[in-house]
């Protein structure tokens, strides 16, 4: 009898131990959390920015580890980082001088060898479209090099200055290890990276710049928004990125802090109006459509009041406070339509990008309903990005017979510089432009070679005016990145060309 009881007790004890071991690592993680845990929505293919094929998911994190030739401040200003520069008078080359005493995480010193290595690696491993206007890079000596251009490129400094990896380290460890444990000059070094799971970073104490406060950080790659939120609420994470709009209020009510960063291009109604046989060839019709859509209501009712309604955000180059979005005025819209001879309305296709972009389809549906109210019947057509890009390039770009109105996100706002969006989406010779205005082209060409920020800002203002006067596009809302954090954490997000960066150096824990 006794032995049976003994066995029972033993079994219970075993069970307790088993349960305890099962849950122990979880408790362990909670203890780690003061070293900061972040739930990040992307899953980078690699943190090596010289070979990544999917920069948008890699950059926000990799920017902690690797650095470009320049730094960008939290206000979006470009300042010397790994190098300072002098622009040649003819603007066809830029001379760079590397900062002295910069060390890679591997202990190697930064020299021009590393610059050439990174340049070649980017050319070999990626599509390297950032080097479209670069002719070559010449080494002058260990610390000086010169970038030669095929044509002046104002965006090189702001946008296309590339990330630098270590040649000596690569030569020592080879491709596989280099990809797994990336070595850069940034304030944080990689301790452990597991694809699709997490990366652990540690402060690099030999960093050339200001020493950040946080020593250890672990970034979990969590694709699902509700799961990121649960991590925050369960206390597993101190901060999460990309909070779904619908959940922002709930998190704020639950006592978390949120930070919003307008970091993405604007969803807009975009016209291809070269074709004289379509009603929207008439500017009055485009203006009528602009007045028929209640953008504020779309933002409030469909997008939880979060996105911004702007042409450009106030901190952007060429921001013009007098350039306003159109008022919602259905009466005026109807009147304009009647003046143009379409009092009874007409039929029109409304293309939108199907797939992963949040709110795009809903916005297109709302636009169709607003237009129905003034008599314009829209046929909604949702296409996958690949098919859409192909059609723009082949069927609609610069085609005087095109029949196209779409809800899309051509980039102007929230880029490193609006000139980027001018070039891709509005300059008539860009392969995906739907706009054709010689006067605008002239301004773009001038702006693309104007290195003086104040003068370029003037040109951007003029360019924006022309687009707005033409009603070539009707901005509705600009996507906003929302971060949520525990109450005792401060963070200043940085934007760099559509990427909302998660720079750990800008995170502080308040005592």
């Amino acid at each position, binding site marked *: 009898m006794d032995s049976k009881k003994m066995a029972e007790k033993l079994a219970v004890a075993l069970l307790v131990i088993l349960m305890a071991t099962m849950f122990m690592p979880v408790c362990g993680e909670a203890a780690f959390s003061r070293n900061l845990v972040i739930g990040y929505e992307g899953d980078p293919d690699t943190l090596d920015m010289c070979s990544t094929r999917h920069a948008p998911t890699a950059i926000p994190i990799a920017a902690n580890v690797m650095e470009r030739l320049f730094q960008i401040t939290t206000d979006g200003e470009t300042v010397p980082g790994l190098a300072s520069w002098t622009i040649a008078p003819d603007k066809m080359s830029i001379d760079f001088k590397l900062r002295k005493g910069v060390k890679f995480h591997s202990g190697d010193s930064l020299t021009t060898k590393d610059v050439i290595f990174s340049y070649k690696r980017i050319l070999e491993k990626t599509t390297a479209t950032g080097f479209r206007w670069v002719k070559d890079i010449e080494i002058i000596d260990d610390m000086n090099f010169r970038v030669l251009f095929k044509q002046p490129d104002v965006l090189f400094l702001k946008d296309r200055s590339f990330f630098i990896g270590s040649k000596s380290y690569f030569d020592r460890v080879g491709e596989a290890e280099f990809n797994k444990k990336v070595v850069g000059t940034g304030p944080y070094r990689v301790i452990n990276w597991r694809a699709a799971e997490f990366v652990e970073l540690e402060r690099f104490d030999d960093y050339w710049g200001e020493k950040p406060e946080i020593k250890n950080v672990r970034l979990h790659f969590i694709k*699902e928004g509700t*799961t990121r939120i649960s*991590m925050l609420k369960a206390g597993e994470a101190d901060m999460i990125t990309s909070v779904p709009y619908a959940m922002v209020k709930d998190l704020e009510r639950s006592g978390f802090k949120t930070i919003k960063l307008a970091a993405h291009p604007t969803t807009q109604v975009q016209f291809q109006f070269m074709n004289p046989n379509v009603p929207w060839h008439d500017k009055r019709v485009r203006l009528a459509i602009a007045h028929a859509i209640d953008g504020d209501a779309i933002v409030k009712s469909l997008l939880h009041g979060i996105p911004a309604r702007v042409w450009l955000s106030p901190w952007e180059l060429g921001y013009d406070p007098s350039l306003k979005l159109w008022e919602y005025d259905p009466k005026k819209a109807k009147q304009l339509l009647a003046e143009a001879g379409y009092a009874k309305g007409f039929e029109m296709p409304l293309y939108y990008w199907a797939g992963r972009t949040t709110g795009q389809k809903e916005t297109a549906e709302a636009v169709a309903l607003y237009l129905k109210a003034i008599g314009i019947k829209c046929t909604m057509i949702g296409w996958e990005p690949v098919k859409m890009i192909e059609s723009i390039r082949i069927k609609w770009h610069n085609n005087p017979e095109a029949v196209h109105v779409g809800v899309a996100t051509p980039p102007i706002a929230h880029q490193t510089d609006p000139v980027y969006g001018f070039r891709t989406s509005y300059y008539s010779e860009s392969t995906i432009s739907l706009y054709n205005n010689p006067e605008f082209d002239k301004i773009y060409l001038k702006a693309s070679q104007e290195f003086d920020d104040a003068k370029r800002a003037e040109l951007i203002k003029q360019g924006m005016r022309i687009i707005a006067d033409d009603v070539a596009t009707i901005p509705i809302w600009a996507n906003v990145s929302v971060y949520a954090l525990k109450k005792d954490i401060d963070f200043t997000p940085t934007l760099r060309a559509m990427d909302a960066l998660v720079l750990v150096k800008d995170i502080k824990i308040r005592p």
Partner: protein
Amino acid sequence: MRRYALKRVILGIITVIIVSMIIFVASRLSGDVTYLLLPQDATKEEVGRLRAKLGLDKPLPFQYLYFLKDAVRGNFGKSYRYTNREAMEIILERLPATAELAFAAFLMSVICGLLLGVLSATKRDNFLDTLGKTFALIGQAMPGFWLGVMAILIFSVKLGWLPTSGRGNISHLIMPSISIAWFSIASILRITRSTMLDVLDSEYIKTARLKGNSELIVIWKHALRNALIPVLAMSGIQLAHLLGGVVIAETIFSWPGLGSLILEGIYSRDYALVQAGVFVISIIFITCNLAVDLIYGVIDPRIRYD
């Protein structure tokens, strides 16, 4: 038995080849991948250069032949999305995580499904049976992703018992495997219950009872073995369902497995990755079906002599 097995194996191989063909063509139907890989405003020359580099400038049948030639040697090409790495290498790296999850879920659904099914059948119309039937109804009606999200809310956020996501120890495995297994448990429960009820009504069970066998032996040895064939068939189907369900659970619970990887591959039109992934999954799938077919033969002698 040997001929039966051989026939099944050959059929399996043919299926793999057909699957590879379908996935090859289907992944290329959805448009030109170069537009996704390059910035939207890429020039015509840039597009042309990349297409040539990826071998996409050749006609489709030739592309397939090249693919086949390399695939036979185990080379599925390099991934575009995951920076120049061998597609198969990435797939095999992620396979253990998915296998772990699917196996846990499968084990859970077969054990729970059988147990609850038999109990429900033998204790007909009492409390256990009602419970079993209710569970079956809810299980089949409730989508797995909803269950997953609810489980996270209750057990991680409110109670703090289990970690929300990620892969690690057993505590990480509990919620994802239950959310996948849930539906399958219900299906296996239902089919076990109904076939058991049929079998329990039959003459030979009465004989077995009359011979003085204990109820335990009658149910678990005589009745269950005869009821097992449809249950086994159902388990085979459920395995397919589990592999499908894994994709959703992997996304919700950030489980670093194959499903979420292939999904990402599809989004970014990473042909090499999708082909390698689907190839591996179809092999697993066909092997499982084969195993089920062969086990039929073991359980039911009538099948192997056909």
